[in-house]
Structures are given as structure tokens and as C-alpha cells.
């Protein structure tokens, strides 16, 4: 499945400072669709090169990270249960506090 994954607000530093990743993610064994739970685990394994605790906490993203699926907060689509489809754009962004 072709997806675009974007990292911002400093999270790109965990993926070698690359903000936009065009990736190909296979369906997990035995699953008939890909959800955000699968995708988080895929990202953790394949893209996060350092300090994973800055990205994941428990089975979800750490506090202060917003997840957007096609420009929409994943809280509105079922969070970890959100189903991901071909060509979806998923953004992980750390909230900023500076000024």
C-alpha cells in the first residue's frame, strides 16, 4: 500500500531529519486491512532511527503528538482503529510551545 508519511514539529529528527516519506506498507499477516495500530508499529520499526520514546509511549504516540489522517485528527476517525487506505497521507506532528 502506497502511503505518504510526514513528520513535523521536531519528530523528523527521529527519522534522519527527513520530513516526507513515500513508503510502501504491506498488510500485516492475517489482517484484511491496515489500521493505525499496524502503521504505528511499522513506523517504529522502519522509520524511527533514534529515541523511539520521543515517538511512542505504550501502544500509542507519546503525549503532545498529533496524528492526522488525510488532514483530519485521528481522534475523529477512531484513533488506533482508523483504517488506512491506498494513497492516504498520515502526518505525525509534535505540538510546539515556542514563541
Amino acid at each position, binding site marked *: 500500500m502506497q502511503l505518504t508519511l510526514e513528520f*513535523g*514539529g*521536531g519528530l523528523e529528527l527521529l527519522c534522519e531529519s527527513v*520530513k516526507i516519506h513515500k513508503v510502501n506498507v504491506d498488510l500485516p499477516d492475517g489482517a484484511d486491512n491496515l489500521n493505525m495500530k499496524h502503521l504505528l508499529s511499522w513506523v517504529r520499526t522502519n522509520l524511527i532511527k533514534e529515541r523511539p*520514546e*520521543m515517538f511512542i509511549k505504550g501502544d500509542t504516540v*507519546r*503525549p*503532545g*503528538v*498529533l496524528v*492526522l489522517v488525510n*488532514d*483530519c*485528527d485521528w*481522534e*475523529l476517525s477512531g484513533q488506533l482503529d482508523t483504517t488506512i487506505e491506498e494513497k492516504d497521507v498520515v*502526518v505525525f*506532528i*509534535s*505540538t*510546539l*510551545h*515556542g*514563541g
Partner: protein
Amino acid sequence: EHGLEHGLSPDQIYRYSRQLLLPSFGVEAQSSLLKSSVLVIGAGGLGSPALLYLAACGVGRLGIIDHDVVELNNMHRQIIHTEAFIGHPKVKSAAAACRSVNSTIKIDEHVEALRTSNALEILSQYDIIVDATDNPPSRYMISDCCVLLGKPLVSGAALGMEGQLTVYNHNGGPCYRCLFPTPPPTTACQRCSDSGVLGVVPGVIGCLQALETIKLASMVGEPLSERMLLFDALSARVRVVKIRGRSAQCVVCGDNSSFKKQQFKNFDYEDFTQFPLTAGPLNLL
């Protein structure tokens, strides 16, 4: 010209004529703006353009609160301050600049840090609150205070080459805690003074904060509530995304919240976020 009927003086009609001419703004919106009051918290990178544009466009009463003094290393982004004010309180410097562009509006100077002990009393004096601060405890404290007082909050942030903007606690929309119930780890909380920022990035976000404030005060357009603007300066990309609404489970604005003014006054925001509310002016890299 029906400006006079709306209580605009001939001088005001002349000064604001380019906004009065505008069909989607006009006399009514200008008149609302002139009757409104806005508090800008922080006279730094975000507050600089926000304050200048709010003063210039004719907000009736503009409050400025900041405890800090102007330093040379602020000058690359805090364009409201001039070299002549280095070492002086930012509030004095910002107020002087606002008066020099518009001597006809009222400007309140609060030369102090915002704390749980003074926040309710200060914020209650204004219609709209602008968060132009630079640290997590301030952001939680200001949002909680806005919920308790029922004030809309125009929240901007900038760091490095990125900026973010949204309106909290407006018209049934979420508060800061609805989005961020748990504070981030301290290692994810860089401030511009620690990690750097390209000066014009808070410039863009601060202008957009002024815009959202003007829209709220004059009741024109669609405010950025339940939406967030994400700005990436390096790639010149802007995203406006849909974010969650108010959470029924929110400990501050939710249905069963027991968070009242007394809880607010006793809440330790520094302990909650593990981050200091104010860094003294000498706390440099």
C-alpha cells in the same frame, strides 16, 4: 457615509477608511473592533506583530503582559522592540510602539509574570485572549483560565522553521487540554531561546494570530476553531487540518469537570509540566 451613525468620529473614519470601504468588513465590523478588548500574553516573537496589527487596526483596548526585559538577542525576531529599549521591560517598549502607530486606542501595561495568583483577575478584564508565550506551563494555565472565564483563546506557537495556530475554547470547540490532556515529556519542549528560530516564522504566526483575533472581535469570517494551521517555512507549505472538538472527558472543560477557580489557583503548572513558567532574563544558553 454612515460611519457617524455608528459612533465613529471623522478622524476614525479617515484612519480606518480602507477597512470601512471593504464590503466584507465595513462600518459594523470596525465598530465592533473599536468596542472590543484584547489581552496579548507575551511581547516576544509572536506578540510583536500581533500587537502592532491589533493596535493599528483599531482594537479599542489592548492589554500587554510580560515580565521580561528587551535583550539584543531578541531583536532578530521581536520587531516591536527597538535597540533604545534594550534593558527595559518589554511591556513598556511594546506599549510605546503601539501608541506610536495608534494614539487613539487604550493600552494597558501589565509588567509582571502571569501566574495562577493574578491570571483570573487580569484575563477577566478582556474579551479575547492571545497566547503568545513560549512554554508548556503557561499554555496550560492560560487555556484553563480561559475555560473558567469563558473567553476565546487565540493560540500561536513557533519554533525553528515551523509554526502552529488555532483558536481554543470558542463556540463549543476544544480547549488546550482536550487536545493535550497529558503534558509532553520535557525533552519535547524546546523554546526559541534554547533551540533557535528563524525570526520571520513567529512573524507569520503572530500576524495570523492578529487576524484570528480581529475576526473574533468583529464577528466576520470563519474562526480557526476545531481547525489547526501548520506552517513549514523551509518548504513554504501550509496545511489547515481538522482537529477534534470539545472532549466530554476533558478534566477542565468536560461534562463532569470539577475544575473551578479555587482548583485553578492551587494548581501547580510547573509541577504538572515539569517545566518552569518563566525563565529569568539571565537564563541564557
